């Protein structure tokens, strides 16, 4: 475990020096993400011009929900996203061999080796927006609720990564990642909407098999409605199952990779 931590520190150091090298990209990313944050908040602001509630939430509640999503997105962009991008390229070009011969967990190595230091500032910004939305909230939010919420947001970031991986891994068989990556972005839109607007079977799917609503929506419900044991168990349980599924899927993919390549 200590070894992995040290390894990760190396990844961090490399990526910081690389990111600062490309300074234009550094600034552009800040501009891009600021715009993204503004677009997300504006979208809901415009919608709430025409309704008081959406998915059972007021605008103030939706702001917290959205900024929770922004934090998760920022964590994903900083920690995982570049690696996901590279993974499909590695698989297609057969460059994976180089990573498989290392005496460390290939999943760990390939998921974390490229830390996007240039998104780091955005992580701070998203955190700031979340703090702002919590402070400006007119009602009262208990500190237990807030603590649970923040913890579950981190859990949500991890779940986001797992879901993304599950959409990337098929590249081992299909060899074209484009379609699946686009599919993830389309499906991912459901994360950005309150879970209650989805009804019936779709909602049931979104909180279980394809747990997109578990990423931010359910944590936000914990914040507003209190951390009942069944909610907490549900969220953590779904995450654990998703993780086990991904780990199994990964091993399956590696086996097919090593048997297919010459």
């Amino acid at each position, binding site marked *: 475990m200590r070894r992995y931590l040290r390894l990760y520190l190396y990844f961090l150091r490399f990526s910081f020096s690389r990111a600062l090298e490309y300074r234009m990209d550094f600034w552009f990313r800040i501009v891009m993400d600021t715009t993204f944050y503004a677009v997300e908040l504006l979208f809901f602001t415009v919608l709430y011009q025409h309704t008081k509630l959406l998915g059972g939430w007021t605008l103030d509640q939706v702001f917290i929900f959205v900024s929770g999503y922004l934090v998760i997105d920022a964590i994903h962009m900083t920690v995982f996203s570049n690696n996901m991008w590279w993974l499909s390229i590695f698989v297609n070009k057969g460059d994976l061999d180089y990573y498989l011969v290392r005496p460390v967990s290939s999943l760990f190595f390939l998921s974390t080796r490229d830390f996007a230091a240039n998104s780091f500032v955005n992580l701070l910004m998203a955190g700031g927006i979340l703090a702002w939305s919590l402070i400006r909230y007119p009602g009262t939010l208990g500190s237990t609720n807030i603590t649970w919420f923040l913890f579950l947001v981190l859990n949500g970031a991890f779940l986001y990564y797992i879901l993304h991986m599950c959409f990337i891994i098929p590249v081992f068989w*299909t060899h*074209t990642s484009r379609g699946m990556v686009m599919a993830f972005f389309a499906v991912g839109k459901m994360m950005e909407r309150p879970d209650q607007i989805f009804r019936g079977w779709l909602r049931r799917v979104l909180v279980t098999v394809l747990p997109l609503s578990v990423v931010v929506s359910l944590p936000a419900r914990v914040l507003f409605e209190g951390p009942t044991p069944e909610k907490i168990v549900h969220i953590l349980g779904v995450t654990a199952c998703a993780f086990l599924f991904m780990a199994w899927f990964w091993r399956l993919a590696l086996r097919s990779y090593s048997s297919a390549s010459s």
Partner: protein
Amino acid sequence: MRPGLFIHLMSIETRKLFSYRVDFWVTTVVNMVVTLIVFWYLWEAMFQESGASTIGGWSLPGILTYSVLISLSGRVIRGGDLQMAISTDIYEGSLSRFLLYPSRYFFFKYAQQAGAVLPELLQSIAMGALIVLVYGIPTEVPVTATSLLMALPTILIGHLLFFMLSVIPQLVAFWAENVWSLSVLLRFITMLLGGGMLPLSLFPEWAQSILAWMPFIYLYDFPARVAMGLVTQAQWLEGMLLSLLWCGITALLAVPFWRRGELQYTGVGI
């Protein structure tokens, strides 16, 4: 401008897209369905929870039709993927080979971009037909064969306009190492301000009057409203002229970027 070469380049791109494997096409269809589901539940919830019968002048069937139309036309207008071809050429150095050819670089690039129109259009038409078969055309919406035909040129101009808008951010690649973020930025802005996320009539009045003076409106909002038969013939002509004017303006703005950037292009490597 040489139509022969343009068509040749376009057909290469088209054939390439058609030769993609089935799973690629299946996933794009899935994407479109998912996008529509997200829209459908959103507007359903909006109308139910607000209790209003119209929102921003739209009835529920109207706004759903609008959403279907922007998801179908949007793919054609954006040309599928993110617009990265020019910037990739610049920093990978493949611009060099185009500079050697006796033809203009942007001509090449637009021809390639246009090659994606036909497959995307066919796909959108097929999807549209399927939706009409399953759900029918809502009676509240005055969509006709004429209005759909009228929408076609506006979509093609929208495609050109989106390409033109993407040129300047991409040319920044002459100076910056990575302009992916600028392309994404363009996408966010055009989606929100062009009506790709919600109809522009939901914006407050003052915002709408500003948006009317921007080029983004011609990307999603205008073609969708034309297709729905909500635009008079005079407005239709005016809108097309204005969007062509915007194409011209963005082209002119791009010229100094190209001139200065090309001067210091290194072709990558010494």
